[in-house]
């Protein structure tokens, strides 16, 4: 400790110490001079050597290097500007991407003790779901000791509020929800287990601030006011503060306690049905428990629960826990996307660095003179290297600072555009600052170290290093462009290829019969009446029954092995009118007959995958899984329809006829002659007259489709932007290099021109040294992209990762830009004033 204090004391008074040492050594020298005059060394060096004992010389040298670097950079503003610009782009996109990641995946939610919150998913080796049956959640809650609290969240279809035509979004939560995550009311009270924990408690609802302000005009007397949700009276208990961010990204406006669910959804058995998955399960780990220990205990509890509900616990069911204290819960596919984005961003950084490296190398030639002098007066190579690297570091830090500012601005714009909750801010936290600093350092090493080494060794005349950098830069740009091209092509494919079904004038109607306790016979009767009434309606072209309506809330998907190949099938249950209503062509065989069972219709894509050229009709769908009992026979093949996987053109579909037992879970699709939305009032009034308890959810397929397209379009725009940035960087880099080379050879060019050489010939000589590295770079880029894009297979719907159009387009574009970037500066060099160039020097 004493030593550290003495060291710091020295640092603070180092000028005084230095003066003292100087005086002392001068005295020594004088005394010595009387006797003999040998061994007179460099006093400055001797003093510096003595000072080194205190271990602070590095700071002095750093300060020296920094002052010098700043002076040098100020003296060549053109170079400094280009370098900082390139780095701002390269580092800025990385900081922006990291800031986004930090915002959704690293920053804890503003809730009480977010680190101990987990989401629990129900899994088995073959099945996975986030929604568990409530009785199972309650069993786990009552018996688990590793969980200090369990929260259930049940999402339900939108409800009607009084006579407002706009739907309202309601979520049921366990009454401990708000107390457990530590949210205080803005007005009134929020839910709590004592007041809202029982079925007989008076029905209450709490509102988000936004909903209260926008839909209820910020009514100051809101507490105690009675609202009618789906016609049921509920009392407003409180308002949630506007800063609230929900657990697990739930954007509901209205929050009610789960025990009130049967009151609102009359006849519902969800609270007691141990087989009906309905609610997402969150929990708080007990103090000192790990997520692993909790998973272990829940596995033991699952075995005990099996004796209680033998039919409703899956084979090999287990519970997976995921950290839930961040806005984004890190599922494996989310991680995969993040990894892909980081690779793309780092590639941009690599392009920027290769770019700048080339510029620095070229600059090394002009600085030859200066560096030569410094070496001549005794600077060591190490010192020169350190000096050059400090310059790079200053550039990188400037670029990083500018990148940080750009990323903050971009993020702010994004947050405003997406209407993000107020607790999301663009202000960088320590992680982002640390990231910005580290990436600046990394970039300085990438772009600065090789040129610094070359220059310090005075070897920069050899063009090989520059050519390697050109190759690297062209290769990385090429990969970025190809990947961007592939993604954009895939998105266009999903956007502008027909999804295979009619969506323009169709609405889906979900009466939610099962949720209201309808039994199969009653449900069948209800549906038959509804169908008949709808058909009689003017403007209705056709009506059909379907279990999973297009773009619905639920998607069924099964994975199976057929002839050793994994296949994803989207199953559905429909009635014979379905294919006609959805405009799906029957390609082979026949349609279902009314009341027919044990038959199946498959999509063309499935037929192609299972029977190579043979007709699949009259046979069962082959499977590698062990077959039990009678297999359903294929009677027909219909056109592909990416009903529930709009983006996935590899999707295959299989249809079964709807039987009596399916009826409680059936929706309707209705095709109108005119705009589909015009049917809504008629459907509502028919439903009211059939059963006033029911509030069917009516959704226009066209608007659902448009919503999905919008998301895809936004993604395509983002990806195109990345490709554009890559192209821009590549262009800037090559222009700089060629201009530089040309200016270096100005005298040679002038002489050749004076001797009467053709301009085109000279142009060829200048450019020939770039031809090989560019060609090599493009080839490497294509090879890299072909290898790397196999990892993209899942994101590339409908096109191969070796899609020739994307590769050709990307390569052509790159070659074109590079050609412009080389010819422009080279042409300028040819317009040299011969006399002036030859008189120089």
């Amino acid at each position, binding site marked *: 400790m*004493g030593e550290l204090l003495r060291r710091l004391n020295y640092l603070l008074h180092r000028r005084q110490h230095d003066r003292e040492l100087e005086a002392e050594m001068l005295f020594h020298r004088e005394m010595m001079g009387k006797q003999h005059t040998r*061994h007179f060394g460099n006093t400055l060096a001797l003093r510096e050597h*003595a000072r080194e*004992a205190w271990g602070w010389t590095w700071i002095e040298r750093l300060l020296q290097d920094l002052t010098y670097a700043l002076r040098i950079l100020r003296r060549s503003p053109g170079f400094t500007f280009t370098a900082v610009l390139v780095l701002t782009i390269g580092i800025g996109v990385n900081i922006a991407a990291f800031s986004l990641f930090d915002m959704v995946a690293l920053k804890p939610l503003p809730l009480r003790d977010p680190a101990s919150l987990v989401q629990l998913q129900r899994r088995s080796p073959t099945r996975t779901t986030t929604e568990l049956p409530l009785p199972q959640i309650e069993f786990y809650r009552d018996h688990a000791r590793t969980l200090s609290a369990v929260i259930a969240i049940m999402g339900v279809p939108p409800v009607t509020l009084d006579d407002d035509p706009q739907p309202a979004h309601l979520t049921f939560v366990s009454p401990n929800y708000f107390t457990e995550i530590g949210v205080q009311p803005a007005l009134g009270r929020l839910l709590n287990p004592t007041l809202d924990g029982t079925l007989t408690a008076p029905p209450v609802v709490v509102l988000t601030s936004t909903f209260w302000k926008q839909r209820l005009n910020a009514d100051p007397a809101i507490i105690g006011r009675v609202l009618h949700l789906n016609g049921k009276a509920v009392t407003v208990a409180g308002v949630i503060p506007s800063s609230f961010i929900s657990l697990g990204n739930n954007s509901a406006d209205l929050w009610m306690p789960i025990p009130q669910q049967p009151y609102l959804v009359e006849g519902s058995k969800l609270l007691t049905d141990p087989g009906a998955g309905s609610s997402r399960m969150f929990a708080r780990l007990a103090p000192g428990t790990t997520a692993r220990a909790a998973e272990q205990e829940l596995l033991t509890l699952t075995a005990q629960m099996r004796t209680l509900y033998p039919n409703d616990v899956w084979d090999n069911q287990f519970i997976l826990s995921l950290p839930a204290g961040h806005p984004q819960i890190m599922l494996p596919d989310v991680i995969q996307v993040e990894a892909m984005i980081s690779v793309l961003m780092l590639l941009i950084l690599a392009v920027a660095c290769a770019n700048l490296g080339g510029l620095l190398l070229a600059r090394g030639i002009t600085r030859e003179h200066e560096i030569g002098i410094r070496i001549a007066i005794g600077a060591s190579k190490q010192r020169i290297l350190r000096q050059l690297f400090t310059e790079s570091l200053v550039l990188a830090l400037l670029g990083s600072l500018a990148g940080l500012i750009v990323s903050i601005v971009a993020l702010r714009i994004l947050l405003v555009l997406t209407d993000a909750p107020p607790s999301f801010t663009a202000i960088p936290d320590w992680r982002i600052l640390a990231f910005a600093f580290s990436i600046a350092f990394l970039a300085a090493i990438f772009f600065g170290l090789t040129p610094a080494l070359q220059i310090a060794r005075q070897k920069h005349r050899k063009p090989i290093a520059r050519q390697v950098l050109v190759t690297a830069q062209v290769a990385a740009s090429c990969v970025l462009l190809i990947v961007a091209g592939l993604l954009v092509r895939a998105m266009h494919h999903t956007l502008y290829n027909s999804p295979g079904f009619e969506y323009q004038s169709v609405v889906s109607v979900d009466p939610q019969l099962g949720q209201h306790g309808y039994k199969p016979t009653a449900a069948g009767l209800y549906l038959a009446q509804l169908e008949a009434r709808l058909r009689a309606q003017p403007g209705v072209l056709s009506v059909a029954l379907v279990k999973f309506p297009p773009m619905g809330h639920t998607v069924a998907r099964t994975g199976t092995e057929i002839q050793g190949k994994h296949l994803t099938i989207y199953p559905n249950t429909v009635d014979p009118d379905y294919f006609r209503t959805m405009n799906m062509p029957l390609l082979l065989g026949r349609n279902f007959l009314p009341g027919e069972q044990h038959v199946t219709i498959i999509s063309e894509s499935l037929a192609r995958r299972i029977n190579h050229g043979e007709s699949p009709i009259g046979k069962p769908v082959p499977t590698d899984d062990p077959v039990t009992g009678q297999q359903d026979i294929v009677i027909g093949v219909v056109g592909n329809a990416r009903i529930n996987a709009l983006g996935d053109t590899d999707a295959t579909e299989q249809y079964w006829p709807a039987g009596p037992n399916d009826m409680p879970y059936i929706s309707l699709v209705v095709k109108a002659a005119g705009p589909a939305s015009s049917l809504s009032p008629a459907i509502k009034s028919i439903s009211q007259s059939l059963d006033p308890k029911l509030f069917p959810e009516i959704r226009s397929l066209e608007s659902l489709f448009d919503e999905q397209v919008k998301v895809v379009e936004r993604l395509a725009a983002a990806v195109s932007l990345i490709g554009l940035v890559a192209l821009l960087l590549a262009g800037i880099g090559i222009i700089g290099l060629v201009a530089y080379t040309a200016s270096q050879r100005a005298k040679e060019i002038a002489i050749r021109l004076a001797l009467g050489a053709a301009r085109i010939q000279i142009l060829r000589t200048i450019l020939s040294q770039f031809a090989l590295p560019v060609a090599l770079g493009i080839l490497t880029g294509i090879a890299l992209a072909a290898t790397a894009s196999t990892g993209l297979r899942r994101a590339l719907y409908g096109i191969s990762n070796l899609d020739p159009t994307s590769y050709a387009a990307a390569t052509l574009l790159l070659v074109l830009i590079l050609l412009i970037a080389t010819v422009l500066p080279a042409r300028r060099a040819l317009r040299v004033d011969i006399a002036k160039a030859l008189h120089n020097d």
Partner: protein
Amino acid sequence: MPKNGMPTGALILLILRVLRSSSLHGYAIAQRIHILSSEILHVEEGVLYPALQKMLLKGWVTSEWGISETNRKVRFYSLTAAGRHQLEAQQSDYDRVTEAIQTILRTA
């Protein structure tokens, strides 16, 4: 850098030793070592001052400004308690090592 064969460890031991009885300035330290070694050891300023700076850092010596025999302001070094302790430790280390070397030279 003028360095003449003497290892820094040994130099520090010698400086500690000559400072044990009285405080001296840098030049006097070099002189004392030179004379006491029957004019065999030369301590150059290139090694003396780095060693003294290191000893100041370690807290083995302190320095004070005084007036030299030639009436000049100069820095005098004197041993601290830690310095005395260090001297004992180094001295016994040195004795042990030289004894061991002597044994080998005599017997091997």
